[in-house]
């Protein structure tokens, strides 16, 4: 999906506008001098289930932060369904739901309110907010905890709530930053089932970062390897295995990273 520099601008714009995520020459240096992203370009088509794999500090979370509008002034361009995340930030943000790696939930709100307030922050109308919250509470098995404060939930429940919150405003692009970290096997399988259904039935584009390679293998149609802020390879699992002469994704990943 990477475009060459000689692409016809009109065709390039059309591709860019139809892509779920279009990242071009993204560069980010933090105040402490850390060069998190080094001219990264990445194009993720609408409707795909896409995996981002890389070691800690490879730039995955910075990329996700940029998509969510939580990273200051990166150089380069990021478009979400054709909307520039800087120049058209409100339009772009409406299209994205992000479940971050770290669990940060408003301690003044109940579990139900975490969902309803998020929906309202994203402009959902009052009747729709209530219905959608109840629907997600049921899907994520949180109905019994709806009136509980998030700090009284178990780690797995908080993780589920975070994903439910990201889905609340029905984003077309769902970004999950290590959603199953610290989650037991049973819940992980349940989440896989839900994410597959979401992707297939609601045509939601999903971007997943994970350190569990079997998870990426199980869920992702395409996978990108990221190292030191750069995209080093991208393709289907079969393509990556063939490219690195490996028998599985883990082998391809380890070869690519060394």
């Amino acid at each position: 999906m990477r475009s060459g520099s000689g692409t016809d601008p009109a065709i390039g714009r059309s591709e860019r506008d139809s892509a779920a995520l279009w990242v071009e020459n993204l560069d980010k240096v933090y105040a402490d001098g850390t060069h998190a992203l080094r001219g990264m370009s990445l194009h993720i088509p609408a409707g795909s289930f896409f995996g981002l794999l890389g070691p800690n500090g490879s730039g995955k979370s910075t990329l996700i932060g940029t998509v969510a509008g939580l990273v200051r002034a990166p150089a380069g361009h990021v478009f979400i369904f054709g909307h520039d995340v800087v120049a058209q930030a409100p339009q772009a943000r409406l299209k994205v739901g992000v479940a971050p790696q770290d669990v940060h939930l408003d301690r003044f709100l109940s579990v139900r309110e975490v969902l309803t307030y998020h929906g309202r922050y994203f402009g959902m109308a009052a009747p729709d907010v209530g219905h959608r919250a109840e629907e997600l509470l049921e899907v994520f098995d949180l109905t019994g905890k709806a009136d509980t404060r998030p700090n009284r939930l178990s780690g797995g429940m908080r993780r589920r709530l975070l994903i439910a919150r990201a889905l609340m405003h029905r984003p077309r692009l769902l970004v999950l930053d290590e959603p199953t970290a610290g989650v037991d096997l049973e819940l992980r399988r349940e989440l896989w089932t839900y994410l597959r259904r979401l992707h297939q039935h609601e045509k939601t584009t999903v971007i997943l970062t994970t350190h569990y390679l079997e998870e990426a293998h199980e869920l992702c149609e395409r996978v990108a390897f990221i190292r030191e802020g750069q995209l080093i390879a991208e393709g289907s699992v079969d393509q990556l295995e063939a490219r690195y002469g490996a028998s599985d994704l883990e082998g391809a990943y380890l070869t690519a990273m060394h």
Partner: protein
Amino acid sequence: MATLAATRELRLIQRRGTRALASREMRRVLSLWTQTLLPPVLTGAIFLAVFGGALGSQLRTVAGVEYLRFILPGLLVLTVAGQAFANNSTSVFQAKNEGYIEDVLSSPMRPWQLLIAYMSGGLLRGWLAALVLWLGAWPFAGAVQQPALVVLALALTGLIFAVLGVITGMWADSFDQHAFIASVLITPLALVAGVFYSAERLGQPWRTLTRFDPIYYLVDATRHGYAGVHETPTWAGLTIAAVVAAGVFAAAVELLRRGWRLKA
């Protein structure tokens, strides 16, 4: 036409978001009333009882006004300023420190809408505490001479300190930093703002020092509206206060737009 409809839809979405965040901030103030509303009302009442009641019986009048009536406008200004500042600095700092501000920062709201929503909690807290204090003191302090002037002065006080609270919450990285601003800036300014005394009757350098305190002009304007006495040109003071309010508001919007100390 499609673009116009999309713009209208986006504005509706952003208005809903702003109302939601404002309601969250105001709900926080009301649900935590024993921490947000009761203490400033009690503190104000104690000041009135000690200075207005006990000390006031000896001082009788200041600038031709009974002492309780003289200090009440200043106490209302201090209540609005202190509570608007404390509420917003705490709420924004907590949201930033615990990370849940990210849910708001990644929403489609504009920076000025975020600011208005965050200001609303502090404004409610400051104005409500001042209202309760005034209602309690009213039978002893007498009627307000120019209500519109009092409302205007307290409105500007609230706006300025609500914005300063938001900026402080954004700036602070720890509870110590957060408390530092209140201790070294807000409390000293409040104490030398001529709440308990007439600056005209002070010796130097205190008289000049008082005139450098921006809160002094807000206190003086409120006192003008409440008791009919003042030491400075009221409308000049209020005009400057309005300019300051607009200036700090614009600065805070720009800081939010840049994600100053909120975004990596």
